[in-house]
């Protein structure tokens, strides 16, 4: 892809903090109008990448072009066309919902009258019109997040950066946020988001990269990643024993890949029902058995491991 046709173009992008390398040479191309996701465990380098794209963190090395401009030189010009929804809401708690939008719009040099009109539109869009005059503090987490998203849209940005947009929200609030983001995407806005919710990535992203330890370990659409890194189906077996591992040998040859967890055994297979039937033929009797389709979560855990990262 040529740099000019992509919203974001990175080659060998590195971010170093003294001796620590947060982003270790990544290549990324985000096309205009697509929804692009950065997935990865904590510390994978997602947020550092987002901050470089947001032009608040100069790259240590490599090429980075955003909307055809160089963040090192054109930071303010690029930021004028970005909308940023940070991981932690940094709304002004002492201002009203509406004032949060109008004052922020002024930072973009938007005339007051336009700012007021746009604030009303955006409050409508994120369903906060009734709370326009209320202070931010008493709002619920979901409302604050929607307001932060609205604030990221005051300058009618070409690219919206969303750092973990639904972390900490209840299911209703998450679905509302997803639905609004989907609407934005339909309007042609480029969405770039980080998440460690796989359902979020599957819902929203046209394409995504999985990051681990500052590098990109996989790239593609959610579907293609599942095809590439997992099987079509997964069988989850639970045996009535403290040692699930003792059954591993008896299941040998039954699946493309067998994963033994402390509480269950996963069989990665093309045909789950067929595999389960074979389990029966070998007269193994699991206490419970579940056949499900492979998900992005399986890919993610396969690529980045099951060890806790804090």
């Amino acid at each position, binding site marked *: 892809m040529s740099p000019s046709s992509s919203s974001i173009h990175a080659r060998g992008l590195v971010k170093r*903090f003294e001796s620590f390398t947060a982003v270790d040479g990544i290549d990324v191309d985000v096309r205009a109008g697509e929804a692009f996701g950065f997935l990865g465990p904590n510390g994978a380098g997602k947020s550092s990448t987002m*901050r470089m794209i*947001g032009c*608040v*963190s*100069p790259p240590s090395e490599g090429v980075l072009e955003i909307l055809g401009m160089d963040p090192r030189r054109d*930071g*303010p*010009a690029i*930021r*004028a066309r*970005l909308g*940023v929804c*940070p991981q*932690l809401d*940094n*709304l*002004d*708690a*002492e*201002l009203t919902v509406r*004032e949060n939008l109008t*004052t*922020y719009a*002024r*930072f*973009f*040099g938007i005339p007051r009258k336009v700012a007021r009109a746009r604030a009303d539109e955006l409050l409508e869009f994120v369903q906060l019109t009734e709370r326009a005059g209320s202070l931010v503090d008493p709002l619920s987490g979901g409302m604050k997040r929607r307001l932060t998203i609205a604030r990221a849209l005051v*300058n009618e940005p070409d690219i919206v950066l969303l750092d973990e947009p639904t972390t900490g929200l209840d299911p209703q609030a998450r679905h509302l946020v997803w639905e609004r983001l989907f609407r934005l995407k339909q309007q042609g806005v480029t969405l770039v988001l980080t998440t460690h919710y796989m359902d979020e990535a599957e819902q929203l992203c046209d394409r995504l990269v999985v990051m681990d330890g500052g590098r990109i370990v996989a790239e593609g659409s959610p579907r293609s990643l599942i095809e590439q890194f997992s099987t079509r189906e997964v069988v989850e077996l639970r045996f009535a024993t403290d040692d699930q591992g003792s059954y591993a040998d008896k299941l040998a040859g039954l699946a493309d890949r067998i994963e033994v967890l402390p509480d269950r055994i996963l069989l990665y297979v093309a045909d789950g029902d067929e595999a389960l039937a074979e389990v029966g033929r070998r007269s193994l009797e699991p206490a419970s058995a579940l056949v499900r389709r492979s998900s992005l979560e399986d890919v993610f855990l396969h690529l980045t491991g099951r060890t806790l990262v804090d």
Partner: protein
Amino acid sequence: MAYVLEYHLVHYRRTWRASVLSTFVLPLLTLVGFGVGVGGYVDGGIDGVPYLEWVVPGLIASTAVQTAIGESTWPVLSYFEWLKVYFAQAAAPLRTSAILGGHLAFMMFRVLLSVVAFALVAAIFGALASPWAVAVLPIGVLTGFAVAAPVTAYSASVSTDSYLAILMRFAVLPMSLFSGVFFPVETLHPVLRAVAYALPLWHGVDLSRSATLGLNPGWQGLGQLLYLLLWCAAGWFLALRRFRRRLVV
């Protein structure tokens, strides 16, 4: 920078009521307490000037500095650590210098308000002898900036407010006591006097005193003006460096 100032003003519109009391009532109390109360015991005034008239310009400069410090400590720390206001601004197409400059401009607006309020109260008490007294307004803002800029740099460097308490106890309080606000610095031990000369407040106090008493500050006044400007410039560059380090990483 104007946009950032505007933001702080919108913000102030919501919170100004809380500061009205301190802006007008504190001058009244200090004037009555020090000027009239303590002044009653000071026979013959200082340098041939009644004590009330002598102490008022000092109190005005001191008020400017108190306001400047109030605005450049907790708010700055909170905008980095708690409310993250600066980070939200940095994501917009503002330069770091505009984020800092806009906030300092607002601080100077607050300083000006407090100086105007104090001068009005003092005028009602008949404590301003000369029409040159209007010069305390720019002098107050200059002195306020000379303190606010380096204190902003300090507040931007610390992560908890216990460091701000240290600043208040070991820098602000002594400076307020020993900068010729309540008694002439000539009576101080030479070491303390040297400290008073090094810090910004005394210069502001002395310039304000020349203004309200209608004295010609002469070459010394020019030197004091330049010295305060030096504090402003140094404070600005330190603060800008701190802000860049925090906002662009």
